[in-house]
């Protein structure tokens, strides 16, 4: 008898590990005190720029919902959207722009409407020792400056082009500013974190990135050149629950959590701007 109870305990433990829950199985009702009976693994596909903030949110969510585990896949929003189209299993998709989310929506990947949960500003980053001596945005067009940006479809690439076009409309930059800056691009990386890496390694002279990419880790290695508010492009981050979510209850709970006070304060801590008021 004694032996059998051991086996049962072992099987329960194994099942518990397989299901990915960290809470002891003794009192499953204990979790009922939590907002809902949310449990199991929640897979979140999120834009690379969300890496730090979402890892924080994931930990806070797991603490608030014992028995859950949040697993992230961070990458370029376009790459993630493509993986979802090709059948990748995930519960939540958080994109760095509305264009990729719109493609996911028209592809029938989502349930419900995507919600904007955060916004972001653009900044220009240069290596700490600023090898190309960039002082203002004008200098981005100086011949020989080695710029990195992202591949077509990656949100930061589109936001960067928006910004350059806005600058080109201002006579002090000149209408050919966008062409002159683009002529300096030496590489088109797969997501914004790769761009930041190349600048913080000092291999590239400058790049346009999100204000939130200058994390405490990166801040020691790069210098920031602010983009004047009149030209700045506000990046909007939408999030949605996926139609094929293996864990729909978990997905809903995670989405609510991101939009709720805990999620918003984590995003604020990492430098994101709050979601617009109109968003529920």
């Amino acid at each position: 008898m004694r032996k059998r109870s051991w086996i049962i305990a072992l099987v329960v433990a194994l099942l518990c590990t397989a299901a990915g829950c960290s809470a002891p199985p003794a009192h499953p009702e204990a979790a009922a005190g939590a907002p809902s009976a949310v449990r199991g693994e929640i897979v979140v596909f999120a834009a690379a720029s969300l890496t730090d903030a979402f890892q924080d949110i994931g930990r806070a969510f797991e603490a608030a919902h014992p028995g859950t585990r949040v697993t992230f896949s961070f990458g370029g929003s376009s790459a993630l959207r493509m993986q979802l189209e090709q059948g990748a299993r995930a519960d939540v998709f958080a994109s760095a722009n509305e264009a990729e989310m719109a493609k996911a929506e028209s592809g029938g990947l989502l349930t419900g409407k995507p919600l904007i949960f955060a916004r972001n500003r653009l900044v220009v980053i240069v290596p700490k020792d600023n090898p190309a001596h960039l002082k203002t945005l004008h200098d981005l067009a100086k011949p020989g400056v080695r710029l990195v940006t992202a591949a077509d479809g990656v949100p930061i690439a589109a936001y960067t082009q928006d910004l350059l076009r806005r600058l080109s409309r201002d006579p002090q930059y000149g209408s050919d500013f966008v062409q002159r800056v683009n002529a300096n691009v030496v590489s088109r990386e797969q997501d914004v974190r790769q761009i930041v890496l190349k600048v913080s390694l000092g291999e590239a002279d400058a790049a346009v990135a999100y204000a939130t990419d200058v994390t405490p880790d990166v801040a020691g290695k790069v210098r920031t050149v602010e983009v004047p508010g009149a030209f700045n492009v506000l990046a909007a981050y939408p999030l949605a629950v996926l139609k094929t979510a293996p864990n729909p209850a978990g997905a809903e709970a995670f989405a609510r959590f991101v939009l709720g006070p805990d999620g918003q304060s984590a995003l604020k801590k990492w430098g994101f701007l709050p979601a617009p008021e109109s968003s529920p």
Partner: protein
Amino acid sequence: MGLAASAGVFLALIVLPVLAILDRAAAAGFLPSLPGSRTVVLQALRLSAWTSACALLVIVALGTPCAYLLARHPFRGRALVDSLIELPLVLPPTVAGIGLLMAFGRRGLLGPYLESLGITLPFTAAAVVLAQVFVAGPFYIRAARAGFEAVAPHLELVARTLGVSDWQVFWRVTVPLAAPSLLSGLTMAWARALGEFGATIMFAGSFPGRTQTMTVAIYAELERDLDGALAMAAILLGVSFALLALLRLALGRGRAVA
């Protein structure tokens, strides 16, 4: 039965992805219809062709003496040199990429010296070639060394006693006899250079027409236009088959000579 079944499963595992690429690429008409994608494909094809050709030239020029030295002249520390040269064979390409960046990048070990000479390697086609030489070179050196070792030393000795210079002995006796091995090494090195991805994307970045080789372009196009990626995959598949046929030919000739 069990043997045949497992062999069949394994064969299916290899054949199905190949067929799937060809099937989808054929459905897309091989060359993508989007003009932008077509340009990307052709640029990447051209870049891959000439960078891998440059890499092969460097590998043959530097690798042949190296292989001959290892095959013919025992010296202290040869085992160590041997292992170091073969290291890229087992090194994950992303590790190679970081290594190249740390050595030849602007902030790398040699970066300041290169900079003072006006040379900046990262994000250039030269970086692509360097990455290819790094990962593909050992394939050639390994095969060439085995080839040189298989040439009986007395043949070279006889030639020398007939008054032929060392240089001529090497070209007229050693190289022809080792040719099958040299050719198969060259084929393997070329295949590896064409397939290089991890070190290239880290060290050379990705820019259409400048550093975006076929493999890097496949990765980038996948997110933008699947048809373009499929077309390039099908082309690389064809090239791989051709290289494999070349390899068979080289090895077949080797057997005939032996």
